[in-house]
C-alpha cells in the first residue's frame, strides 16, 4: 500500500502548476491551518469552518431562481446532452441529461467538467498583441484594424493565398459554414481544419468505397451488434459515453474484439485482444480476411449483389497467409484466426476505428481494408453492422460536412467550376465576382498541368509549415499570415520546423478561448495577436454528432470577459476586409453578430449532396425539446410531435424541411424505404468500369419502383422514367438541366424518393479504387520503420513533386536507416481527461488535477535495458533531432520495443517550461512536453494525413 504522494501542488516540479496558479482556492485551502498560534485559532470549533472550496461567485445560492438550459457537450463527438443550471447569469450547477438518447445522463470526466467554462479563470481575457516580446492588451477594434490592414497588405503583395485560414472542429455548423464561405470570399482555398489530421483518410477511403465518408450507423445502434471489432480505437478513453452502448451490447451477448498495439482501457473489456505492430493494419486485416476466404465465411449473396471488385482483393489477400501475417504484424496465427472466426460466427458485426488506423502514410489503405472486411462479411447497411467510425471533436463531423477543408466546398461539392457555380447560386452572388476574389495567375497543379488557384486544392493543415518554408510550391508566394482559429498546433508533428515556420511568418493570429501552445512555442517578438473566442456554451447553434445527427445548443451564459462568438469575429473581419455584404447577403446581422438561424437556413438551401437540407432550425429545436420521446436503440421517436423521425435527423435528411424526411439512422440499409430512412450504396463512380457493371444487382431498397441498380438522378433521368410530371411547375423550372445535387428546389430528390428510389442512385460498393495510388489496399512499411528487412518487400511510395501544392517525400526518407540509433517504435494517443491540444482541459483544475505530468509509457523490459525507473524524468530523442523531456511510466500496457505518449500536452518545448511566455494569468495549470514536437515526417498518399502513430525514438534517463 502506498499513499499517493503529492505533498502540495506548489511543491511539485514547475511542470505542475503556474506559481500564481496557486489561486484563491489553493490559497484559502492552505492558509486555513498554519503553524503556531494561527493554527490553534483556526482549529477551534468556534472559528468559522474554512470553506470546502472557495469560488463563492460560482457557488449555487439559496433563494435565487435557477434556470435550466440545455446544451451539448463540446468535447467529443458522442453529442452528450448537458443541462446547465444558471442563477443570475452565473453557471452554478450541472445536471445529468437523462432525456438525451445519446448519453442518458452519462458524462465522461470532460463532460462532467463543462461548468468550469463559465469560470474561465485561465481563459484569455482580452485581445492581446505581442510587441517587443511583451504581451499588451488592446481593444477589439484595434486588433481587427491592425490585423486586417496587414492581411490586405500581404494580399496586395503576394495574393490572397498567402493568408492561411485555419478553422476548427469546435465551430458550430453555422460557424463552420460561415468560415468556409469567408475563406471563399477572401479568395483562397488555403483553409482547413483538424479533420485533415483525424479522419481525412477515413472520409476519402470510405467515401470512395460506398459513397459517403461518415459513420454508417450510430452509437445506439451498436446495441444490435453481435460482434464488435475495434481497430485503432480506444473508445473507453476517447469516447467514454459510447462505451455505455458498447457494454450494453456486450451484455446482450455481443463479442468484443480489440486490435491495438497497446493494451488500452477498451482492451480491458474485450473478449479477445489482438496486439500487433503499429502501422501494420492492412496486413492484419488481410490476415483475418485470409481465414474468412479460406473457410468460405464470406457472405456470397451480399457480395454478388452489392460489392464490386472483390476478386482483385482476393488476389492480394492470398499473399497474406498466417506466416506472412505473423512476420509483418507479429501476431500469431491462432489469435488472428480466432478474431476472424468470431466475426464470421457473430453477424451482424460492426467495426470501429479511429486515429490508430487513420494517421498513417497508408491511412487511406487502412480505412479501405476495414471497409473490405465488413463488405466481405456482408455487414454494411445493416442495423447492428456498419462501419462505426467514431469521430473526434464535438463538431468535427459538421465542420467536415461544411468542408472547412482545402479541397472542397461545403457538402463535398469539390472545387470544380460546377461546384463554385452551385454555391454562387446559393449565395446569390455573381460567379465572376467570386472568381475575381482569387489570384488570377494559373499555377502548375498536382498533375503538372496548369490550374487556376480557385480550382486547386489548398495547402492542408498538416503541411502549413511547409507552405511557409518550402520553396517551389503551387501558389504565387509562401504563406505569410497564419490565422489559427481554434487550432492546437501541438497536435501537429515536426515541432522544430513549425517553430521555424512561425518565426518566419509576417503575422500570427491566434483566435481561441486560451492562448494555446502556438502563442508560446516560438520566439517571435512582434506581430502575434491573441483574440479571445467564446466557447460554444456562450453562443448557440447546431452541431453534428458522429452519427450524423444534428442537435441544437442553447446559449448557457454570455461570453465571459471580452470574448466574442466566432461568427461575430468572422463578421468583424469580413467588414474590415470589405466582404461583409457578400458574406451576409441573406443573413441578418445584429450588432456585428450574424443571426445563427439565418445561416442554418442558408446552408439548408445548398447542402443537397449529403442531405443537410431537411434539418431546419425549427425541426432541430423540436427534436431537442422532445428528446425523451426517442427510442434509445433505434433513435426513432415513438409518439410525440416528431413521431417516426430519427433523433437529430441524421443526414442524409433528404429534400426540403417541408418534405419531413425523418433522417437516415443507418446508411445503405435497404430494408426500409428511402422515405423512412432506407438507402442503397451510392452510384458515385459511374455505371461501369472497364466494361464491368458498377450498379447493384438484384438489391434495392424496400418499396423501390426500380427493382435493380440505377444511376444517380438527373432531370434527364426523370424524363426517361416518365416521372418528370411529378414535379410542380416551379420545380420543373428549377430542375431543368440540373441533377439531384444542384436542383435548389429539391424537386428531383422529392420525386425520386416518392418512387422509393435513392436520389444518388443504387450501385455496388467498390473495393478497387482505381483513382488512388493503391487501388487495392496494400501494406507499406512506415517511413520510420524498425523493420528494415521488410522495406524491400513493402516499400513506401515514390516522392511526389507536387501534392496539395507541396513537394512530398516518401522513399527519400525511408531510404535512411534510423533503426540502429532509434530502435524503439514511438506511437501516440489519447487520455480520457484531455482532448486535442488539451489547452482547455489543462486549464481546468478538475481535469488538470488528474493528469499532472506528461509521461511516456515504457515496457518494463525497455525500462530495464535503458536503466529507467518508474516516475523518473527521461529524454526521448527523435530521429529528426528534437529531444523531449517527460516522466517515465513503466507499464505493460505497451509491448516491448514500443513506447506510447499522449498528445495533449503543451507549454514545454524541448525540456523547457514556457510558463514565462504566457500572458499573465492565462497559462494552463498543467504544462508538459508536446509529443508532436518529436514526431516525424510522413503524410498519407491521398489526403496528406500526418503520420503520428509510427515513428522511432531513443529513450534515455535524465
Amino acid at each position, binding site marked *: *500500500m*502506498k*499513499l*499517493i*504522494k*503529492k*505533498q*502540495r501542488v506548489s511543491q511539485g516540479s514547475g511542470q505542475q502548476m503556474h506559481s500564481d496558479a496557486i489561486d484563491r482556492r489553493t490559497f484559502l485551502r492552505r492558509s486555513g491551518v498554519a503553524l503556531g498560534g494561527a*493554527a*490553534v485559532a483556526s*482549529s*477551534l*470549533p*468556534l472559528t468559522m469552518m474554512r470553506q470546502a472550496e472557495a469560488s463563492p461567485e460560482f457557488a449555487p445560492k439559496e433563494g435565487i431562481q435557477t434556470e435550466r438550459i440545455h446544451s451539448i457537450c463540446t468535447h467529443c463527438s458522442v453529442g452528450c446532452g448537458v443541462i446547465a443550471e444558471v442563477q443570475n447569469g452565473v453557471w452554478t450547477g450541472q445536471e445529468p441529461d437523462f432525456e438525451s438518447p445519446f448519453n442518458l445522463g452519462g458524462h465522461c470526466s470532460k463532460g462532467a467538467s463543462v461548468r468550469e467554462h463559465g469560470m474561465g479563470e485561465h481563459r484569455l481575457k482580452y485581445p492581446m498583441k505581442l510587441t517587443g516580446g511583451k504581451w499588451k492588451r488592446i481593444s477589439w477594434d484595434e486588433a481587427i484594424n491592425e490585423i486586417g490592414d496587414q492581411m490586405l497588405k500581404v494580399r496586395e503583395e503576394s495574393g490572397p493565398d498567402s493568408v492561411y485560414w485555419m478553422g476548427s472542429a469546435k465551430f458550430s455548423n453555422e460557424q463552420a459554414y460561415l468560415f468556409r464561405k469567408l475563406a471563399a470570399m477572401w479568395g483562397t482555398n488555403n483553409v482547413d481544419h483538424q479533420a485533415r489530421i483525424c479522419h481525412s483518410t477515413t472520409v476519402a477511403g470510405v467515401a470512395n468505397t460506398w459513397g459517403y465518408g461518415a459513420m454508417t450507423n450510430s452509437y445506439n445502434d451498436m446495441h444490435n451488434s453481435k460482434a464488435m471489432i475495434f481497430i485503432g480505437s480506444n473508445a473507453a478513453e476517447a469516447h467514454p459515453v459510447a462505451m455505455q452502448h458498447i457494454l450494453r451490447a456486450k451484455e446482450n451477448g455481443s463479442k468484443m474484439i480489440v486490435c491495438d498495439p497497446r493494451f488500452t482501457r477498451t482492451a480491458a473489456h474485450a473478449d479477445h485482444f489482438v496486439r500487433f505492430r503499429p502501422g501494420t493494419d492492412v496486413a492484419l486485416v488481410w490476415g483475418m480476411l485470409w481465414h474468412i476466404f479460406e473457410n468460405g465465411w464470406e457472405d456470397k449473396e451480399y457480395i454478388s449483389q452489392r460489392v464490386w471488385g472483390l476478386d482483385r482483393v482476393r488476389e492480394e489477400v492470398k499473399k497474406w497467409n498466417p506466416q506472412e501475417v505473423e512476420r509483418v504484424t507479429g501476431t500469431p496465427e491462432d489469435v488472428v484466426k480466432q478474431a476472424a472466426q468470431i466475426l464470421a460466427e457473430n453477424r451482424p458485426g460492426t467495426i470501429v476505428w479511429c486515429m490508430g488506423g487513420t494517421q498513417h502514410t497508408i491511412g487511406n489503405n487502412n480505412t479501405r481494408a476495414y471497409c473490405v472486411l465488413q463488405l466481405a462479411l456482408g455487414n454494411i447497411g445493416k442495423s447492428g453492422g456498419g462501419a462505426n467510425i467514431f469521430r473526434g471533436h464535438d463538431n468535427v463531423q459538421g465542420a467536415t460536412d461544411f468542408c472547412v477543408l482545402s479541397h472542397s466546398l461545403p457538402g463535398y461539392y469539390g472545387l470544380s467550376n460546377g461546384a463554385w457555380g452551385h454555391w454562387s447560386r446559393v449565395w446569390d452572388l455573381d460567379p465572376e465576382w467570386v472568381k475575381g476574389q482569387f489570384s488570377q495567375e494559373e499555377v502548375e497543379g498536382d498533375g503538372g498541368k496548369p490550374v487556376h488557384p480557385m480550382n486547386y486544392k489548398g495547402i492542408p493543415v498538416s503541411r502549413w509549415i511547409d507552405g511557409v518554408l518550402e520553396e517551389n510550391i503551387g501558389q504565387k508566394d509562401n504563406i505569410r499570415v497564419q490565422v489559427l482559429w481554434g487550432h492546437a498546433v501541438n497536435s501537429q508533428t515536426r515541432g522544430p520546423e513549425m517553430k521555424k515556420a512561425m518565426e518566419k511568418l509576417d503575422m500570427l493570429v491566434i483566435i481561441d478561448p486560451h492562448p494555446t501552445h502556438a502563442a508560446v512555442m516560438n520566439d517571435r517578438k512582434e506581430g502575434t495577436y491573441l483574440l479571445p473566442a467564446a466557447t460554444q456554451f456562450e453562443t448557440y447553434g447546431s452541431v453534428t454528432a458522429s452519427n450524423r445527427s444534428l442537435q441544437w445548443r442553447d446559449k448557457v451564459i454570455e461570453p465571459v470577459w471580452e470574448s466574442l462568438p466566432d461568427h461575430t469575429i468572422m463578421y468583424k473581419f469580413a467588414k474590415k476586409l470589405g466582404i461583409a455584404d457578400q458574406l451576409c447577403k441573406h443573413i441578418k446581422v445584429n450588432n456585428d453578430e450574424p443571426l445563427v438561424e439565418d445561416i442554418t437556413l442558408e446552408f439548408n438551401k445548398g447542402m443537397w449532396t449529403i442531405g443537410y437540407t431537411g434539418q431546419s432550425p425549427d425541426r432541430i429545436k423540436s427534436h431537442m425539446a422532445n428528446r425523451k420521446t426517442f427510442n434509445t436503440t433505434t433513435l426513432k421517436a415513438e409518439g410525440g410531435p416528431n413521431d417516426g423521425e430519427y433523433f437529430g435527423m441524421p443526414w442524409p435528411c433528404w429534400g426540403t424541411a417541408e418534405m419531413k424526411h425523418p433522417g437516415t439512422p443507418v446508411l445503405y440499409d435497404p430494408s426500409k424505404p428511402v422515405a423512412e430512412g432506407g438507402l442503397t450504396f451510392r452510384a458515385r463512380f459511374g455505371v461501369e468500369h472497364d466494361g464491368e457493371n458498377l450498379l447493384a444487382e438484384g438489391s434495392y431498397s424496400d418499396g423501390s419502383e426500380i427493382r435493380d441498380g440505377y444511376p444517380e438522378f438527373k432531370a434527364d433521368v426523370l424524363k426517361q422514367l416518365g416521372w418528370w410530371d411529378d414535379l410542380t411547375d416551379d420545380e420543373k423550372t428549377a430542375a431543368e438541366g440540373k441533377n439531384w445535387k444542384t436542383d435548389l428546389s429539391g424537386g428531383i430528390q422529392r420525386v425520386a424518393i416518392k418512387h422509393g428510389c435513392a436520389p444518388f442512385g443504387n450501385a455496388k460498393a467498390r473495393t478497387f479504387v482505381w483513382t488512388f495510388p493503391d487501388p487495392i489496399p496494400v501494406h507499406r512499411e512506415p517511413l520510420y520503420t524498425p523493420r528494415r528487412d521488410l522495406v524491400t518487400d513493402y516499400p513506401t511510395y515514390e516522392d511526389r513533386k507536387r501534392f496539395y501544392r507541396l513537394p512530398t517525400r516518401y522513399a527519400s526518407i525511408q531510404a535512411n536507416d534510423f533503426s540502429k540509433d532509434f530502435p524503439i517504435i514511438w506511437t501516440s494517443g489519447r487520455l480520457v*481527461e484531455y482532448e486535442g491540444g488539451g489547452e482547455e482541459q489543462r486549464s481546468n483544475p478538475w481535469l488538470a*488535477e*488528474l*493528469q*499532472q505530468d506528461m509521461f511516456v509509457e515504457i515496457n518494463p523490459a525497455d525500462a530495464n535495458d535503458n536503466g529507467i525507473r518508474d516516475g523518473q524524468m527521461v529524454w526521448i530523442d527523435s530521429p529528426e533531432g528534437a529531444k523531449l523531456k517527460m516522466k517515465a511510466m513503466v507499464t505493460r500496457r505497451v509491448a516491448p520495443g514500443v513506447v506510447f505518449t499522449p498528445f495533449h500536452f503543451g507549454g514545454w518545448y524541448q525540456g523547457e517550461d514556457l510558463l514565462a511566455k504566457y500572458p499573465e494569468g492565462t497559462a494552463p495549470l498543467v504544462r508538459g512536453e508536446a509529443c508532436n514536437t518529436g514526431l516525424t515526417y510522413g503524410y498519407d498518399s491521398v489526403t496528406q494525413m500526418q503520420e503520428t502513430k509510427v515513428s522511432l525514438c531513443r529513450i534515455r534517463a535524465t
Partner: protein
Amino acid sequence: MAKQQKTKGRHAKIILWSVVTIMLGATLLPLTGYIYVGVTSASAQATEESNPRANYWRAVREGGAGYVASQGPYTTNTLIQNGGQNWRQIRNGPVSTYTPWLLAAVIGAILIFHLVRGRIKVTEPRSGRMVERWGMGERVLHWYTAILFIILAITGLSMLFGRTVLIPLLGPEGFAAWASVARLAHNYLGPFFAVGILIEIVWWIRHNIPNATDMKWFAQGGGILTNTHPPAGRMNGGEKLWFWIICTFGVAVVVTGIILDFPNFEQSRETMQLVNIIHTVAAMVWIAVAIGHIWIGTLGSEGSLEGMTTGRVSEEWARQHHDEWLEQVKSREQS
C-alpha cells in the same frame, strides 16, 4: 580485580538483554491483538464459497494496490485496506478495555495501600543537617518533563477516553473545543517532551546501572511491605526500575509519537495504525507507573519531595532510604 571485571561484563550483558527484552516486549505485546484478529478473520474466510474469479477478488480484499489518477496527500491506490478494521478492533477493543483497568488497578492499589499503611515517615527526628541530592539542572529538567508529562497524559487520555468520559460531562461541542485544544497541545508539546526525556536518559544513565545492591533491594520488595529499608545507593532499585521503564516504554512512546506527529514522511496507514497501538499501550503503562512514582514522591514518602523542590534532603531521610549513597557523599566530603 579480574573477577570484578568479569561481574561488570556480566552486568553489562544483563542490562543489554533486559533493555532489549523490555523494548521488544513493549513493542510486540500489543501486537498480539493482530494475531487474534488474523485468526478470527481466517476462520471467517474459510466459510466463504469458492468463486471462479476468487483470485482477483482475493487480491482486492488483501488490499492489492493499483493505478489511480487522482493525486493528493491522502489519496491511496488501495481499494480496501483491512488494517483499518483490525486497528479499530484492537483500539476500541482490548486497548480501551484493559488499559483503563490497569490505571484503575494501580490507583486502587495505591489507595488501599495508602489507607492501610499510611505515609512512610522518616523515623529519626530531623537534625537539620541537609545533603544535596539534586542539582539545579537536574531539578529543572525533572519539572520540565514532569509538567509536560502531565499535560500530555491528560490530553492523551482525553483523546482515548474523552468520548466515553467527557462528552457526557461537557457535551459534544464543549468536548470538541477541549479536544481540539488538547490535540494541538499534545502534538506541539510532544516533541519538546521527547527532547527532555532523551536528555534525562543520557544524564542519569550512569546512576542507574543495576548492581548487586539492587538485587537485594528487590529481594526485599523495597521494604515497602515489611516496613524496612533495604540498603540503596543514590538510586534505589525502584528508582532504577522507573528509569528503565522510561528508557523502554518511554522511548517507545516518544518514537511512536514522533512518527504519528509528522505524517508527512510517506508513512503508510498500516504504519500509523501499528504505531498508534504501540503508542497508546506503552503510554498507558507509563502513566500507570508514573502514578506510582508521583505517589511515592509526594504522598507516599515523607521528605522525598523536598529533594526535587529544594534540591536537598535531610540526612535522616538519606540514611533511611539511600544509606550507601550517604556514605559515599560523606566520604567524598571528608576526602
